[in-house]
C-alpha cells in the first residue's frame, strides 16, 4: 500500500539518546523497512545498531598506500636503471636508500587520496540533491535535531503501519518525504 511518490517517513527527535532508542526499537519490528538515522554529529554505536554495511575505507587506504609507495619506487627504479641510467661517481643505478624518501611521501599521499575517495563513494557523495532536502524540518539535521527515516525496501511498504509505529516512539514530528 505504498503511496505513489512517497520516499519514506521521517521522525524527528530532540536528543541523540532518543534516536538510539528509536533505532533499537525499529529493529525489533520484523522487516519494517530500511532504517536510516541522521544526526548532526557521529553518535557512538549508532551505525553498528543499524544494519551493518561494508566500511571499506581502511582497505582503500591500505591499497592506496601500497599503490602510491610501490608505484613510485617502481617508477624510480625503471627510470634510474633502464630508461635514464646516469653513472655519477660510481653510485649504483638502483640506489634504493635514496629512492625511499619520494616513495614514502607518495605512500602517504596515495593512502589519503584513496581514503577520501572511498569515503565519498561509500557514502554515495557527492549527491547535491536528495529527497530529504525537500523536508523543511530536515534543515536542523545539521544543527540540533535527530531523525529516523523508514523507507520501503522493495515497493512493499505499509505506510500506515510504519506511521503508527513511529507514533509509538513519541517523536517531535513525523513528516512524509516525497521523491
Amino acid at each position, binding site marked *: 500500500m505504498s503511496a505513489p511518490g512517497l520516499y519514506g517517513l521521517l521522525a524527528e527527535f530532540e536528543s541523540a539518546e532518543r534516536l538510539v532508542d528509536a533505532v533499537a526499537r525499529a529493529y525489533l519490528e520484523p522487516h519494517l523497512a530500511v532504517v536510516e538515522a541522521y544526526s548532526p554529529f557521529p553518535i557512538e554505536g549508532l551505525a553498528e545498531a543499524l544494519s551493518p554495511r561494508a566500511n571499506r575505507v581502511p582497505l582503500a587506504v591500505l591499497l592506496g598506500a601500497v599503490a602510491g609507495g610501490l608505484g613510485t619506487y617502481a617508477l624510480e627504479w625503471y627510470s634510474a636503471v633502464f630508461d635514464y641510467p646516469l653513472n655519477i661517481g660510481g653510485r649504483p643505478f638502483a640506489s634504493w636508500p635514496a629512492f625511499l*624518501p619520494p616513495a614514502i611521501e607518495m605512500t602517504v599521499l596515495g593512502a589519503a587520496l584513496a581514503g*577520501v575517495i572511498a569515503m565519498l563513494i561509500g557514502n554515495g557523495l557527492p549527491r547535491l540533491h536528495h529527497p530529504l532536502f525537500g523536508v523543511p524540518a530536515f534543515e536542523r*539535521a545539521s544543527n540540533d535535531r535527530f531523525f529516523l527515516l523508514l523507507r520501503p525496501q522493495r515497493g512493499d511498504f505499509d505506510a500506515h503501519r510504519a506511521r503508527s509505529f513511529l507514533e509509538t516512539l513519541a517523536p517531535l514530528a513525523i513528516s512524509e518525504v516525497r521523491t
Partner: protein
Amino acid sequence: MAASTQEIEAGTTPLLAAGETHGSLTACISALTLQRPAGRIWPAAFTLAVLLALLLIGGIGWLLVRGVGIWGLDIPVAWGFAIANYVWWIAIGMGGTFISAALYLVRKDWRSSLSRYAEAMTVFAVSVSGIFPILHLGRPWFFYWLFPYPNIMSAWPQWRSSLEWDFFAILAYLIVSILYWYVGLIPDFATLRDRAARSAVARVYGFLALGWRGEARHWQRYETLSLLLAGLAVPLVFSVHSMVALDFSEGLLPGWHSTIFPPFFVAGALFSGFAMVLALGIPMRRWLGLEAYITERHLSNMAKMMLAVGLVVDYSYVAEIFTAFYSMDRYEVAVTLNRMFGAYAWVFWGTILFNVVLIQLLWSARVRASHTTVFLISLGVLIGMWLERFMLIVTSLYRDFMPSSWGMFYPTFWDLAFLAGSVGVFFVLFLLFVRLVPVVSMSEMRKLVHKGARAAVGAVETPP
C-alpha cells in the same frame, strides 16, 4: 566563567560553558560566517594584507623580468632569504597539523576548538612556502621538470637529490593537508547550507558540502577516515620536515652536514607552528568573541606545549655546538665560532634571545595567564625562528673552506619585499578564511556538547 589560575593549571576547568547546547553552538559559530558582524578591524587588516600581497605580486613580476639577481644572492651565499622564508613558512604549517592530528590520536578534547584554524593555517602556510623554492629555481616556469613525466628530452629527475625528495614532500604535504582540512569541513558546510538565508549562499555551501546529510553509516566511514588521515598526517609532518632538513644535511658544508638536522628541524617546526597558532588565536578569539570556545585553558595548554617543544629546540642548539667542538673538525669549530662572534653574530644572539631566553618566562603560570605576554612571546618565537633559519643558511655559506671564496650577504629591498609580501598573502588567505569558513569545527564541538550533557545527566543519576 572566571577560572582561577590553579583550576586552569589543573586542567579541571570545563572546555565548554555549562549552558552550551547544540543550538547555541551552531548559532554562534555559523553567524560568524553567515551574518558577519561588522567591525573596523577586519577591513583594515584585509586592506593592509592585500597591499602587502600586491607587493609580492609586483616582486614576482620583476623577478620574472630580471631574474633572482634582484635578491641579494650571489656566490658564495646563493641561498639567502628565499630559502629561509621557505623553511620558516613550511615549518609554521607543521604545528597546525600536529595540533589537529596528534592531539586527535591521543584523544585530547581541547583540540576540538583549535583544530579548524590550525589546519587552515597549515594549508595557507604551506601554500605560501611553496612559492619560494619555485622562484628560487631561476627559471621558475620550468618548475614542472621536477615532476617525473615522459618528455621529449628523454630525461628523468635525479632521484638521489634531496631537492627532488623535497619536491615530493611538499607536494604530498600540501595535498594531504588540504584533504584533511576539507574532509573536516564537509559537515560544517552542510550546516551553513541548511542555515543560509539567501539561496545563492546556500547553493555555494551546498556545493561544497557535497550533499552531506549526516546518516549514521556515513558518519561511521567519515570517522574512520578522520582517524586514518590523522594517523597518516603525524608521520607525514615528521617526514616532510626531515626532508627539508636533508636539503641541508646532504650538503657537505660545515654547519649543515649533520645527522642532528632532521629531528632538530622537526622540533623547530613544531615550535614555530605552536607560536603561530597562539599569535593567530589570541587576537582572533578576542575579535570574533570566541572566548567561550577557545578558553583560558586552551591558551595555557598551548603555551605549555610551546615551552616544551622550545626546550627541545634549545637542547638541539646545545647539542649542535657541543658536537662541533667535540668533533675537533677545524671547519665545524670555525663555523660555530663565526656564528657566535662573526659578522652575523647579532643574528645568533637574537635567536638565543627569542628562542631560548624569553620562552623561559612561560614557566610562570602568571605569565601564561596574561594573553598579551603570551602573544608577544609567540611573536618573538616567530621572529627568533626566522632568524635561526637565516643564521643556519647564511653563516654556513658566507665562510666555507676556502678564504678565497668568502663573501657577505646583504638583503636588497626585494628580499624584504618578498618576506613582507608572503606575510601579506598568508593574511589575505587567513582573513578570507575567517569570514567564509566556520573558524571552529561545529561537528567536533557537538561531540563535546554531547559528552557534557551526558556527564551532567550521569552526575544527577548517581549521587556521590
